[in-house]
């Protein structure tokens, strides 16, 4: 075993802890379904656990937390434009929904 200090080396324990955390968050988000929460409580809990899991995977498993900001910003910055796509498609979906109500449900 040569003493190479190359690449991304971190204590194994940190991966085991994240592994455990991901299990806990997955179990908790599964519990949201079992408990039958509905509405905004359900959606906000699902999003909370989702972003926690995604954050830990990207930061620790994919080593983003230890990369230089030039790489982090180049990779994590561009997906933010998706918020615009989500916003536009939500408007479009509302319009389609209302049109369907008008012509398929009400306007027979």
């Amino acid at each position: 075993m040569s003493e190479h200090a190359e690449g991304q080396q971190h204590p194994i324990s940190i991966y085991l802890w994240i592994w455990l955390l991901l299990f806990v968050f997955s179990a908790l988000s599964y519990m949201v379904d079992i408990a039958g929460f509905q509405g905004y409580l359900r959606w906000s809990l699902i999003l909370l656990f989702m972003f926690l899991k995604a954050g830990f995977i990207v930061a620790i498993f994919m080593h983003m937390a230890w990369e230089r900001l030039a790489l982090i910003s180049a990779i994590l910055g561009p997906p933010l434009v998706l918020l615009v796509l989500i916003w536009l498609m939500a408007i479009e979906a509302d319009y389609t929904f209302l049109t369907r109500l008008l012509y398929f449900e009400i306007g027979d």
Partner: protein
Amino acid sequence: MANDATTADQTPAFGEGTGWSGVVGDWSSDKQTFGVPWGKAMMWIFLLSDTFIFSCFLVSYMKVRMSTAIAWPNPSEVFGLTVFGVDVPLLLIAIMTFVLISSSGTMAMAVNFGYRRDKKKTVALMLATAAFGATFVGMQAFEWTKLIQDGVRPWSNPFGAPQFGSAFFMITGFHGLHVSAGVIYLVVVANRVRNGFYDKKGNYDMVEISGLYWHFVDLVWVFIFAFFYLW
């Protein structure tokens, strides 16, 4: 910036400057921008493009689900299983989630042992990762079979809005394709670790690069699990 210009003739090494002044330093001075192996930078850029592909699927799923005037099928019931006479919601999906997370855990450790040049453990952990991945695909095949037998089609289903089937087959199908490709990729890289290919090459970067792909597949599943199965 004027400060950078005066020191431009001596190329700043990676690690000089942190935060946003580091970003300016890394992007300027006519040199390599990212202080990582080129393969790793390219894998990240590929994953960025893949992010947009999966986002298009998930956003279009959001669009059809928001716009349908017919009730959306309740995934909790559609994907429920009856075990020993007890109805358990989303059971198979929960198991699949834990299997994929476990595969990410073994992969993260494989990368670590790769950089420590512990070939035996690297190969074993990578093959374990691939085995978890193959298990995941197997369970997905079971899930598809069950849903097809229940009458779910891309154009119709007995539970509600017809768009449910097309969104389900498109999103999980594309994800399953990624997992299958990842299993093959991991086996190829694990074999190259075993036969000393990376010793000749002089570095084990490829283990981390294949790991990035694998974690991304797990990452996508986090979003599919939240938006498609739980929402």
